């Protein structure tokens, strides 16, 4: 209970803007995960690349901002991972990356 109370009243807790903004950004991670099963033709190279740069910059931002925001950092680390994966799927689909053995034969 004491730790919950500490979280509840924390300067970066759920009563503050430092909490809900980062929570909203988890939507990007959720969307990225939901789109993992989509065919690569449906991935937007523009948007995924933009997300990769965006999350890389905001990982640093979350670390340097006062107060340091670990929730935002965790969100952007996750998003960076998901978006890089989606970007690799898109790139393979476009023929930019070498594909695995048998697929390469059809190219």
């Amino acid at each position, binding site marked *: 209970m004491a730790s919950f109370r500490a979280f509840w009243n924390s300067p970066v807790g759920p009563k503050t803007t430092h909490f809900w903004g980062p929570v*909203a950004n988890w939507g990007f991670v959720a969307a990225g995960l939901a789109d993992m099963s989509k065919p690569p033709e449906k991935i937007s190279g523009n948007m995924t690349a933009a997300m990769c740069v965006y999350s890389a910059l905001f990982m640093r931002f979350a670390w340097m901002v006062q107060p340091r925001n670990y929730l935002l950092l965790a969100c952007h680390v996750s998003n960076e991972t998901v978006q890089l994966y989606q970007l690799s799927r898109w790139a393979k689909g476009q023929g930019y990356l070498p594909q695995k053995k048998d697929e390469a034969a059809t190219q």
Partner: protein
Amino acid sequence: MANSKLQALWNHPAGPKTIHFWAPTFKWGITIANILDSSKPPEQVSYAQQAAIMGSGLIWTRWGTVITPKNWNLVSVNFGMAVTSMFQLARKTQHDYLSSNDQQGEQAASESIEDQ
């Protein structure tokens, strides 16, 4: 006089030598990507991704006005995200569900549902 003002901006704690400047500035990339993608076929638009951009954009637009100091850069970039994502969502919804050619609309709708 102009020199010292420029210098003040250059050396500002949230200025161009810091992440506090570049991270929000680069966030415009998301809005620009959406503008570039506005001419792509609606089948390629992702409901989940655009909804996430809209949600995040709207929340951060509001919070940008609530924090101290008010950060208009943050407000404007997130407002841009919200507007472009709503445009993409409207485009895709119209194509999938409100298309005048019913057959085409149903086909597209079942296509996007299958993929999700």
